[in-house]
Every structure is written in C-alpha cells, then in structure tokens.
C-alpha cells in the first residue's frame, strides 16, 4: 500500500515530472484551457437560453428536463461520433464538454429566474419598465446567485470530465489516466486522477468563496 503512495509522491514531487510536453505543468495548463473554454461556450449558449425561458415562461419543460437528457448522454459515444464525423481535432472533445455543461447552466439559470418574487416583477412593470428592462435590471440581478452556482457546477463537472480529450489523442490530465491504463502504470493513473480531483476541488473552493464574498458585498 505504501509502495503506491510512495511512488505517487515521488512522481508528483520530482522536477522531471513537471517539465516537458508530457509534464504536469503542461498537461495542467491544457486541462484548464479545455475546461475554461468549454464552460465559456456553454455559458454563451446556456445563459441566454435560461434567461429567455425564465423571463418568458415558455419552454419550461425544456429547462427542467434538459438536465436529465444531458446526464443520459454518454460522453464516450458523443466524442467518438463527432470524431468519426469530423476527423481528428479537439471538436469532439469540446462538443461533448459543452453538451455536458449547458444543461447545468440552463437549469440553474432558469431556477434562479423562477425564484424571483413575482410581486417584484409586477412592481417593476407597474413602474413602467419594459420587458427587457425588467429582465436585465430586476430579474437578472436577483437570479444572479443561482446563476453563478450553475456556472460553478458546470465548470467543476467539465473539469472532472475533460479527461476525455485523451480518448482521442489530445492532452490534459486525462493523458496520465489513459497512458497509465495502456502501460498498466497505476502510479500514473492515480496521479492523473488525484490531480483532476485537486483542480476540481480547488476551483470549487475558490469560486464558492468568491460567490460568498460577492453576495455579502451586494447585501451590504
């Protein structure tokens, strides 16, 4: 038991592991790049969608059930499918990651919007505010906490799943898991897994702390 731990410790702390194109620093950077870009794209799609459904009330069925559908989608299958259709590029990876992140963002944005007190919306309309003014000046600020939670959850999920880039030859921390599987090098596999977990947990802590600070600031 200590053998595996000891080797893992050695791997994580030796300078050689961190440098070079297969080094931890590089793979970490790749992994973060995939995750952030995918989440950004997912937000660009999911936020407007969630806001629209929440504001108009139409398409609520979609917002509620999109999560189930997204959860049912097998990422391996999706990656392979897009790869076969479009060739060897990062597209399959991004499609799968965005497909994973959009439901979380839409659902939470919608939940945030529906949590807004209808009386407040009525009051705003009573004051003469037009539709989009109500949306951006009243609903959105009030829904912000849940929207931010959605973004955070989506990012964490994406970070945990970005290992799929390795399925189609690309980088990121998944490379350690995949290569370790092929070489039956459990230290590498464990290293990759631990690094992904650490990145995900760290981001989660950072973002939730940020969220708390921001909400305290706004409340004051």
């Amino acid at each position, binding site marked *: 038991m200590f053998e595996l731990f000891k080797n893992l410790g050695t791997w994580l702390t030796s300078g050689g592991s961190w440098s070079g194109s297969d080094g931890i620093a590089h793979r970490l950077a790749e992994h973060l790049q995939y995750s952030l870009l995918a989440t950004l794209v997912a937000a660009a799609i999911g936020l407007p969608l969630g806001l629209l459904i929440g504001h108009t009330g139409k398409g609520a069925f979609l917002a509620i059930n999109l999560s189930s559908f997204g959860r*049912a*989608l097998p990422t391996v*299958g999706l990656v392979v*499918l897009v790869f*076969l259709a479009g060739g060897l590029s990062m597209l399959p990876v991004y499609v799968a990651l965005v497909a994973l992140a959009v439901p979380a963002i839409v659902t939470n944005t919608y939940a945030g919007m529906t949590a807004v007190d209808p009386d407040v919306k009525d009051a705003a309309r009573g004051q003469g505010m037009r539709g989009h003014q109500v949306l951006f000046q009243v609903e959105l600020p009030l829904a912000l906490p849940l929207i931010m939670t959605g973004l955070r959850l989506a990012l964490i999920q994406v970070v945990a799943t970005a290992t799929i880039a390795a399925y189609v030859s690309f980088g990121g921390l998944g490379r350690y898991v995949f290569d370790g599987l092929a070489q039956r090098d*459990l230290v590498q596999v464990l290293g990759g*897994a631990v690094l*992904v977990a650490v990145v995900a947990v760290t981001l989660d802590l950072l973002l939730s702390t940020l969220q708390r600070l921001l909400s305290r600031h706004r409340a004051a």
Partner: protein
Amino acid sequence: MSIDWSWIGDHTDDLTSLTLSHLQAALTAVFFGLLISLPLAVVAHRIRPLRGFLLGVSNVLFTIPSIAIFVLLLPVSGLTRTTTVIGLTVYTLVVLLRNTVEGLDSVPARTKEAARAMGTRPLRTLLTVEFPLALPVIMAGVRIATVMSISLVSVATYIGDGGLGQLFTDGFQRDFPTPVIVGVVLTILLAVVADALLVALQYVLTPWRRRRA
C-alpha cells in the same frame, strides 16, 4: 456519415444482449449505492460532526474521473463485471448520499417531535415518518443516480466491459459510425425510459402527495 440500416437488422441479437448487460450493470450499481448510502445518510444526518466529513469525501470522490476509478480497481477485482459495478457504485453512492441527507434534512423538526411525543421509538420514527417524508428528495436522487449510471457504464468499455459502450470502441476502431449512433440512441432511450418508470414509481409510493393535488 450515414447509417447502415442492414447492420442494425443483422445485429438485433447482439444489441439486445448488450442493452440488457448495460442495464444490469447500471441497476446493480444503483442498488448497492442505495444499500450503502441509506444507513450512511442516517449517520450523516444524525451525527453532526460526521456529516461534513462524509459529504466532503463524497464530493471529492465525485470529481475523480470514472475511467481512473475503473482502472485503479483492476488489481482488486480484475477484468470483470464486478470492477465495473464497484466503480459505478462509487458514483451512485455519492449522488444518493447527498440526496438522502437532504431529504432527511427536509423533514420538519416539528413532525419528528410529534412522533417522539407520542412515544414512537427513534427507529420506528425513522422508518415510518422520516423516510416516507424524505421520499420525494430521495427518489429524485435515485432518478439522477440511475440516469447517470446508465451513461457511465459505457466508460467501462476501456476495461473490456461497457455494455452498449462496446459499440463505441468497435465503431471507433473500424471507422464505422453505425454502431456508435445506435449505441448513443439506445443509451439515451434506456435512460429516458428508466427515468419515466422511476417517476411512475414515485407517484405510486407517495399517495399523500397525490391527494393534495
């Protein structure tokens, strides 16, 4: 990219057995997840200090990539269905634990006190009052865990199992989209049907909520 419909016609037997194998893996994982998470949730709910610990552990476990867990289990249980199920159970356990704790939390304190005032012992309260009231949230967890499990089974194709996931590696190796498309469609279908059945089950199990509506 086109579908070879004749391939589908020729392989209905294989597809059926893969689907059943896939379902079996997912459901077994949910079952064991429930078995372990229910008592664990009671502990987490009742013993404050352990609650943060248990939920924290499960949150971290959830971020470990599923393929890594499968591979790390290979020395434990080999290239077998057991490995797949253990790996899947880690994830169903996390989801079910979270939801069951949340469900138990949602039971109003007043209701528990009323039961206690009537002289009901803690275990009976748990079984006849708390769990039934927590059922909607627990069932939501079962739904999430089941759908997620059905999706995750395919990752096990990288360790020689995978149910419908084997269609993905097969199609990938031969540059053949048809099995991949069929695999994706069947997986989603399986999940949607399972989810619908669970909704129906929840409806049956919670008659008091029906009467209110």
